[in-house]
């Protein structure tokens, strides 16, 4: 088996707007890119049985999740003509209003970036072993389940 280095997708806590700006800025030297599409997941202050979610505490089977993210990224490169594809996901506490997922694809033309970011996002929701404890304002909790 090849000794491929698997990237670590996980970021401790919320993903900051500045991290996103930084990622965008790093692509301005790639002058063959014409289009970027960015998906951001944000934690909602959902009301569940009369209680308000104030944060999600994310945990993951990290070794497996990083492999799954790597496979998703590889599959995206095979399906779409991309220049770049980056994925970041939070672990630990992310408060309502903060960002927990950052998917960023770049391509020469827009259609590929649109398709790829959507594909990657759907794949993450379905396949990445990440778990979310929704913490209410009264410190009780429930477990989030992706639809």
């Amino acid at each position: 088996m090849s000794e491929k280095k698997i990237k670590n997708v996980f970021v401790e806590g919320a993903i900051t707007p500045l991290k996103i700006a930084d990622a965008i800025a790093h692509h301005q030297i790639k002058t063959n890119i014409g289009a970027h599409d960015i998906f951001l997941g944000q934690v909602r202050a959902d009301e569940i049985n009369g209680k308000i979610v104030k944060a999600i505490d994310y945990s993951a089977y990290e070794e497996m999740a990083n492999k799954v993210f790597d496979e998703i990224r590889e599959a995206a490169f095979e399906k779409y003509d991309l220049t770049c594809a980056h994925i970041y996901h939070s672990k630990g506490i992310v408060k309502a209003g903060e960002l927990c997922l950052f998917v960023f694809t770049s391509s020469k033309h827009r259609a590929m970036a649109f398709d790829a970011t959507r594909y990657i996002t759907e794949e993450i929701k379905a396949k990445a072993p990440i778990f979310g404890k929704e913490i209410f304002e009264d410190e009780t909790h429930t477990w989030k389940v992706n639809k």
Partner: protein
Amino acid sequence: MKLAVKYFGMIAEAIGKQEEQLEITGNSVLEVDVFLKNKYAKLEFLNYKFAVNQVLVDGIKRLKENDEIALLPPFAGG
């Protein structure tokens, strides 16, 4: 057969631990599931899938000594 067993999310919460080494009789995932449900009655009421060595598997998957088996509740990434 000795296995490394990992629990995540609501499963870890229900069982009260995140991992353990277990000596299990039988060599399929299905047999491990029966073993664990006998050991932890709460599993009967929880929804989860199995991964062996970090790959999702079904019940007929055969195990070998020192495999890592994980109980994964519904995903919530994104």
